[in-house]
């Protein structure tokens, strides 16, 4: 491994060892000398005190020697600090946004996560900012700490090293959930990281294969949940052993790439047993076919059960930092049973009762201070930047929490 990569932590630790070592010696000497004097020059052993008012040489010595010592300490500390600040030019950059009380990491391809996933043995530079108050990004294992300041960008860098997990803690007091503003640095092998980065991106960006299937109306006949409509379900279709009828003869095939491609372009060639020959042939490019098959490989099941996407957004956007999903009260009202709940709120100083309709929840996400539920503080930041799709998913998720 490149020696400069491990430098920062070891340089800081050298400064720690040097300062602690010297300090311990000084403390030990002062204490030992004091105790010796107390013993040797007690009134009993030394009834007549000497009359010494000072000693210029001694004092000059103990002015100059500490100057040299602290000069050295300063230098070690500064060397360590510089190593912490000088991010290598080839660092992998991740953007981090802090908010009460969660971390959001954004990768170069637009993918976001609530934990910081990084490739192993790579210098990582994290660009930091905050949307509300000052937080501080602290990873003790890498000796890095930097405040995230609203309206400003700061950074830390570290070398990720071996695959492992490290704690991220918020180190600048930021309110009631400060001590729960935790996350992890997850260092994974490079190839795994790339896989994660691209695979998970599909959860964010709508899957292109799925878009194509939608566009061509495939879902009108093929379900994604295993139920039968006109054609076989897409659920688990990839790699499935299927009995087909070819020219009147039955045979078992494995639904591999070639089979699936052929079934789209020439559906009549092999008809799955038990189904009618109804599907029209589709003219698709090789690339489009690849995307659709890619979607099938992903299981072909719906993105997940209802609310899964919303749950992910709630986690990523930090909603669950304040709103529980199990009915317990954290900072804000619980999501559990929120939908259509009758709630006492205060608007513009007036108390009223509202029903938590979809419109109410949307407005509460975008402009939380308009209606404040009784018994809670108006401390929620405005989430105006959430896309409509994300809000829709969140509401779907909330409505599943009965």
């Amino acid at each position, binding site marked *: 491994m490149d020696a400069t990569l491990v430098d920062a932590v070891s340089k800081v630790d050298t*400064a*720690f060892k040097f*300062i602690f070592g010297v*300090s311990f010696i*000084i*403390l030990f000497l*002062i204490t030992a*000398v*004091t105790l010796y*004097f*107390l013993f040797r*020059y*007690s*009134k009993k052993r*030394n*009834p*007549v*005190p*000497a*009359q*010494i*008012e*000072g*000693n210029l040489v001694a*004092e000059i010595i103990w*002015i100059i020697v500490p*100057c040299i010592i*602290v*000069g050295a*300490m*300063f230098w*070690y*500390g*500064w*060397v*360590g*600090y510089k*190593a*912490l*600040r000088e991010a290598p030019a080839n660092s992998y950059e991740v953007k981090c946004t802090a908010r009460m009380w969660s971390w959001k990491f954004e990768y170069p391809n637009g993918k976001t996560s609530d934990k910081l996933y990084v490739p192993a043995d790579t210098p990582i530079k994290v660009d930091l900012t905050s949307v*509300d*108050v*000052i937080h501080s990004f602290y990873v*003790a294992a890498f000796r890095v*700490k*930097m*405040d995230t*300041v*609203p309206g400003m960008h700061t950074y830390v860098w570290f070398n990720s090293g071996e695959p492992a997990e490290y704690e991220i*803690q918020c*180190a600048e*007091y*930021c*309110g*009631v*959930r*400060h*001590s729960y503003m935790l996350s992890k640095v997850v260092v994974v092998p490079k190839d795994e990281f790339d896989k994660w980065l691209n695979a998970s991106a599909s959860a964010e960006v709508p899957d292109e294969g799925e878009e194509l299937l939608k566009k061509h109306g495939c879902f009108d006949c093929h379900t994604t949940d295993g139920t039968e409509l006109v054609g076989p379900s897409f659920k688990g279709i990839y790699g499935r052993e299927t009995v087909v009828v070819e020219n009147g003869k039955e045979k078992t095939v494995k639904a591999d790439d070639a089979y699936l491609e052929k079934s789209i372009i020439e559906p009549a060639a092999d008809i799955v047993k038990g189904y009618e020959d109804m599907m029209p042939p589709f003219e698709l490019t090789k690339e489009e076919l690849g995307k659709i098959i890619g979607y099938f490989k992903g299981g072909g099941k719906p993105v997940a059960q209802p609310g899964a996407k919303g749950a992910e957004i709630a986690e990523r956007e930090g909603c669950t930092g304040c709103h529980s999903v199990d009915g317990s009260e954290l900072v804000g009202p619980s999501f559990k049973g929120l939908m259509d709940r009758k709630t006492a709120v205060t608007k513009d100083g007036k108390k009223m009762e509202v029903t938590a309709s979809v419109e109410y929840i949307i407005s509460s996400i975008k402009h939380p201070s308009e209606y404040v539920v009784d018994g809670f*503080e108006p*401390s929620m930041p405005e989430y105006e930047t959430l896309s409509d799709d994300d809000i829709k998913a969140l509401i779907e998720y909330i409505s599943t929490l009965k």
Partner: protein
Amino acid sequence: MSSNSLSFWEDSGNGRTGIMAWLTTTDHKRIGLMYMYVILAMFIAGLCLGLAIRLELIAPGRTIMDAQTYNTVFTLHGVIMIFIVVIPSIPAAIGNLVLPIQLGAEDVAFPRLNLFSWYLYIGGTLLALVSLFTGGGAPDTGWTFYVPFSEFTTTNVSVAVIAVFILGFSSILTGLNFITTIHRLRAPGMTWTKIPLFTWSLYATGWIQVLATPVLGITVLLIFAERVLGVGLFDPNKGGDPILYQHLFWIYSHPAVYIMILPAMGVVSDIIPVFARKPIFGYKTIAFSSLMIAFAGSLVWAHHMFTSGMSDTAVLIFSLLTFVVAIPSAIKVFNWTATLYKGSITVDPPLLYALGFIFLFSVGGLTGLILGSAGTDIHVHDTYFVVSHFHYVIFGGTGFGMFAAAHYWLPKYYGRMYNKTVAKVAFYILFIGFNLLYFPLFIIGLEGMPRRYYDYLPQYQEGHVISTVGSWILAVGVIIMLVNLIRGFTKGEELKGRNPWGAATLEWTIPTPPPLLNFDKEPDTSRKPYDFQGVTPDE
């Protein structure tokens, strides 16, 4: 004891009796005691809050309170201990009692201003208490009131910052009063090099109070303006700069720790020679180092901000200056130790507490080097390492300095002595409890335990448990010490002479307890403050 003249206890000097004689007094000794009683009450309150914090942290998760309560408790612990207890402790209480007499004066330069300072102090304290029970609940910002959080929170921060503003003015006026007294009211023959080192330290402190505290006043007023008028100086949404607030806050609040520690250093400088029966080693160096600390200490504020996002150049400069300020503190410690050399030492309670100060302050000071060094500070900034360092310096330093001062000077003013054996036992319990309480916090701080955490990761629990047990032992030590002092001053043995310790400064040449105007004869300023030849303790 001169039984002919009335002591300041009997002679109010304003023709009133009972409580009104105290509330309208301009006597520096009565005002000093009035400060001390309020400080004692608030110290006990702050101590209880501290114990509650420790108890909550004995285990992860909820132990005795919820997160919001915890946040208000540590905020109150900080605000009470810093602004209401530690800053006025030695200067306002002991300083008022001792400073004029050490100079050979009858009172401070502005006695009525002195009383006004006390009323400001009481007003600020009451307002701080009001902020707990009114508005949107007790403040939850920490004692640093960092923006933008202090602008967003709905708790009663506005009232609390006004309380701090008023307390600040009390401190400014006390500093001004002391500086003027030292310049103008020294007895004939009391040259600058004969001023006792305690008073020297208050001189240096006074300048910090006068020059730095107004910055705090302005800063907290700006917070008030932000919250009430929405000015937007610090709010990034309005184009403000939250880091500007941090600069303004620390321009006061770092020098403020020297307001806290310098007087305690003065106490130790006065006590050690008396019990070593030997002149202080390097009088001029110690006096000058107090001024150096006051000066250099005003230039290091941004070492609290190495992780704030300010420029690397600023980090370089402030780290370097921080190491510079370590030098005068080191000189003092070496000089104190050298004073013991070839002395004739009696380990009475004041010396014991002063030695406790030296050890605990040294630990606090040396760990401060870790915090001054830029690279290492990044790791331990805002962790329990800082919490521990700060308590070693301020509790181990100023706190033990205050305890030493109380054991040294108060018998003079009450005319009675406490039980010395109990005082020593209390010291050892305190000392053990203290180290058990704070030392583990260095370790978990180094391991990455952030401060102001209501809940924590399980790997830090061991340190927290030891620390909490230490807090109980410490509390026992404090109780024994205070009960012993209070019993001593109400029922203890009466002092027979003027000079129970055999000290050479002027306050020990006057009757016990002192009369209203202090001196029953012209102060004798011929003797140097630490020349003990021919001076013996009055048995």
